[in-house]
């Protein structure tokens, strides 16, 4: 479903590659944890999947399509099919929670009636129904991250990318977020998770890809966090 084919990324000429000669395949429905120290290239790898960063060499395929060969329009359609969650939540600060989630539906061209029905439903899924009219700055970090997850899944994407989603959260909230991600994975969505957190990776107990200095050094189908 997702295939990185000999991908290298060098941000500026002369500097060391952020990602070097990576070949990695991910099947539908998998829950893949990508682990490694800061600067190992985890985030760069994920950013290439939704074309925020383009590879210097090699190709990234989503299904049978080369992401770097997509037109602007097809790229936007691809992005609507990939949910993204980040460490810093990246919510729209001037929009309330309803609007933050509705925005993702609006750009996908959903009708007002669908939006009215889907937003409360997805907020219910992440346990935030009572915060629908709040603004992001009125929510705790854990709550903001749950809103970000709700936004990421509301379009029912095939893939959910979670880039250090628990990095800014306390252990209890981090655990809640992972439980939500597992629930989403059980419903059939492929999940790519990057993290530093050993206990999270161990609790998930699924495939673990370990990166170091831009390369994959271990790929275990039901691994633990080993570094």
């Amino acid at each position, binding site marked *: 479903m997702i295939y990185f084919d000999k991908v290298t990324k060098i941000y500026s000429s002369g500097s060391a590659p952020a990602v070097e000669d990576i070949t990695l395949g991910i099947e539908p429905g998998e829950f893949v944890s990508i682990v490694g120290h800061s600067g190992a290239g985890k985030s760069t790898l994920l950013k290439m999947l939704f074309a925020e960063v383009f590879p210097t060499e090699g190709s990234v395929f989503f299904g049978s399509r080369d992401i770097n060969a997509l037109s*602007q329009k097809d790229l936007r*359609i691809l992005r609507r099919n990939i949910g993204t969650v980040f460490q810093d939540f*990246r919510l*729209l600060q*001037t929009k309330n929670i309803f609007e933050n989630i509705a925005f*993702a539906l609006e*750009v996908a061209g959903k009708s007002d009636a669908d939006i009215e029905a889907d937003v409360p439903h997805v907020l219910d899924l992440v346990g935030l129904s009572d915060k629908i009219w709040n603004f992001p700055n009125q929510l705790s970090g854990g709550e903001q991250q749950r809103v970000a997850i709700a936004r990421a899944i509301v379009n029912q994407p095939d893939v959910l990318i979670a880039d250090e989603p628990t990095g800014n959260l306390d252990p209890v909230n981090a655990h809640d977020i992972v439980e939500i991600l597992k629930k989403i994975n059980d419903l059939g969505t492929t999940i790519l998770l990057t993290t530093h957190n050993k206990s999270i990776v161990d609790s998930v107990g699924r495939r673990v890809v370990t990166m170091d200095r831009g390369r994959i050094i271990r790929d275990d189908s039901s691994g633990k966090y080993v570094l």
Partner: protein
Amino acid sequence: MTFWVTIKRVTRYGLLGFFRNGFVSLSAIFIMTITLFVASALIIFGAALNSVLKDLTTKVDITVYMMVDATDDQIQSLQQSVKTLSQVSSVEYISRESALATFEERHKNDQLTLQALQSLPDNPLGASLEIRAKDPSQYAAISKYLEDYQNSNSSSGIDRINFVQNQVAIDRLTYIIDASHKTALTIAIILGIASLLIAFNTIRLAIYIARDEISVMNIVGASHWFVRGPFVVSGFMYGVLSAIIVLVILYPLTVWLGPPSEHFFGTFNVYSYYVSTFPLLALILLGTGAILGSASSYLAVRRYLQ
């Protein structure tokens, strides 16, 4: 998604963004108000200058003094002849009697001169013709024509032509009028560009503040128009509101400046100008504001689109 649904959503987010980013909107409006105020001041000052120049232009003339014994026929034939010139805008005949009346009026406090005048057996003043050109630069040609007329026609009845005496003054005035036009235009262009850049930069700053939001919109897969549209709507609002503020401020300001402006510029009253040109002024300010606001937003968002 239909076109109208997109328009509706973009407009709604534009209006929401405008009100929720209150402080940013306020500063953008403040700067654009200053920009548009400068623009309107330039327009009004330009009109005042034009009016002054027009007044000055009508005050310049060539006066042809006729001999005291010039006949009506001589005067009339000269008058007819001058009127046929394409450069001439008007020819006014001042009779001997009215020349005397004007002289007496001017010297009414000077008893000595008046007594001397009364001691003369006859009115010593000749009739005269005041000739006005359509453009100050054409006086030289008219003066040349009059001299030729005087030289080629011994019974022309012309005593003297005062253009030659005023030539330096007229040349200088022509030069001043020309230079004022150029200076005013240069100042207007420089001020216009400066305020345009300031307004553009303010809006760029407002959008720079929102760059993280724009990147989120990109990642969620929003089309360029869906990202850009709300900012263009907000920019449009900045411009239109600033224009309305300027139009409102101008009212008491022109009422206050009306009498002094008339005193200073002669016939130009800034309040009458504001009232008489209000529709045009409103159209120019609203149009400039709307275009400046929305175009600046359109351009400023561009660099953040992916």
